[in-house]
């Protein structure tokens, strides 16, 4: 049975490094979770709200506590064993959905942080060349069926990519290889049509590929077409953001500013909002409008989390401007 436990101020519910057994929900009082930020090493204190669960991740994941839970004022909480917690969660889907949302945000964030660090390393690998190389690898190791899959995928996503003509000829070789000994390949492939991309997605990836080849004018045309054709929807928003980046890279700073101002009005909650603001600030800087640039960079600092690359970039830019 879950049980209510009273804690005196300044006591500890658990220490970092402890084996995780229970999940807690705070009924009353104040509890703080203390830990060191993994990036800066800075000591962090997160206050738990009344009614909030804590200690969930480490208990469910069966790893040691990552934080120390300190009781600030006399507090009451309910402790659940993991099976007890699972039972109430299964009866109350809302709890799981809410936690899924929180955890997926955390996962997305840490994933991005890891990727950012890997990007700066030597083994940067853009997805376009990556996919092509996999096709190449399978063909070389005479795994024709897999080669056909990877190369077809490459040509679907990057019909005018930098390896497109090479991929076509490799695909032909792979298909010839398969017809020699495994005739059933062409039957196996259509099974996966469920995962085929929509036309707009294809167009989008094609445009992204042009952008990565620094063909900004061409890419811009494609993105603009997507905006016109898709009207609303996920890809329009993405294409809007990418269009602004094209303007910036084409040194059309006025248009970049105008474009993003329009986008922000249309999508006030755009996922790339802060990055867009950075391009606006940077455009003003290039146009020698120091005040406006400073204003935008400062705005970014007030909106972005300290661990976001755009935060550091803005900070650096401000320093350069003598702020």
């Amino acid at each position, binding site marked *: 049975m879950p049980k209510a436990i009273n804690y005196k101020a300044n006591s500890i519910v658990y220490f970092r490094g402890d084996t995780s057994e229970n999940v807690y929900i705070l009924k009353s009082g104040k509890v703080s979770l203390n830990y060191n930020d993994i990036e800066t090493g800075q000591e962090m204190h997160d206050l738990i709200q009344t009614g909030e669960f804590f200690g969930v991740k480490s208990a469910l994941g069966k790893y040691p506590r990552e934080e120390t839970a300190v009781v600030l004022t006399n507090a009451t909480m309910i402790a659940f064993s993991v099976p007890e917690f699972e039972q109430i969660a299964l009866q109350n889907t809302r709890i799981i*959905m809410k*936690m899924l949302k929180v955890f997926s945000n955390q*996962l997305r964030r840490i994933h991005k942080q890891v990727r950012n*660090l890997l990007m700066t390393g030597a083994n940067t690998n853009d997805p376009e060349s990556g996919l092509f190389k*996999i096709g190449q690898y399978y063909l070389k190791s005479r795994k024709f069926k*897999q080669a056909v899959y990877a190369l077809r995928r490459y040509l679907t*996503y990057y019909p005018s990519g930098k390896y497109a003509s090479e991929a076509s000829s490799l695909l032909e070789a792979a298909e010839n290889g398969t017809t020699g000994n495994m005739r059933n390949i062409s039957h196996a492939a259509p099974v996966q049509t469920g995962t085929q991309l929509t036309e707009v997605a294809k167009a989008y990836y094609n445009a992204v590929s042009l952008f990565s080849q620094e063909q900004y004018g061409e890419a811009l045309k494609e993105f603009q077409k997507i905006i016109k054709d898709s009207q609303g929807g996920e890809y329009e928003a993405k294409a809007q953001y990418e269009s602004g980046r094209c303007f910036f890279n084409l040194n059309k700073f006025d248009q970049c500013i105008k474009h993003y101002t329009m986008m922000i009005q249309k999508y006030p909650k755009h996922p790339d909002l802060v990055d867009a603001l950075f391009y606006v600030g940077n455009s003003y800087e290039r146009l020698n409008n120091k005040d406006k640039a400073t204003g935008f960079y400062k705005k970014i600092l007030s909106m972005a989390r300290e661990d976001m690359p755009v935060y550091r970039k803005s900070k650096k830019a401000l320093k350069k401007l003598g702020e």
Partner: protein
Amino acid sequence: MPLDLSMFERFAVTYQPEDIIFCEHEPGDTFYLIQSGRVQIVKIIDEIEKNIDILQPGEIFGEMAILEEAPRSASAVALDQVKALEFNRENFEILMKGTPQIALKLLKLFTKRIYDQKRRFLILTLNDEQAKVADVFLMLSETQHVDNPDEDEREFKVAVDDIAHWAGISPERSRAVLNHFVSQRRVEIFPDRIVVKNINDFARFVKSKRRQQLSD
């Protein structure tokens, strides 16, 4: 407890042995729940196909697609004839609300992924390549079952390229660092495994490097 998934029959997809379900680097917007057959997760690292994991019926894969439409970080290949349910972000909510058991399974998977990624992040934040490599071994030892915890020596079924991948450095650098450790007699390299002579020595080494870095 067996789950009744008959209502999701329309999401079912089947694959023949060796079929690629999705390929590393391709953009992903679907994730899968295996109903029958096994699925192998592989990654091609330096012209070698590496096994990352073999998944059984009841397991979920491709779940990062729920969060973001990023390129797949590995390939999924059918080992047997595989029947799986294929979901995307649109029908994700229906699935989760209809079958809280799957939602809970996914929640647990996320906790594990967050932990793994955080641990990986810590390796990558080290500036020193030797410390990075040493920390990869520490990470591997944390999830390894040991018969005798008092024993300092640890054996890992990994290759030089695996270490490079985890440490975020090139295979050449990884080999150079490992050779340096070999010359110091801290490590022995075999074709199928790498032996760390004293894991606690590595722990002290990484700890001091990390402290030094924070005070810089």
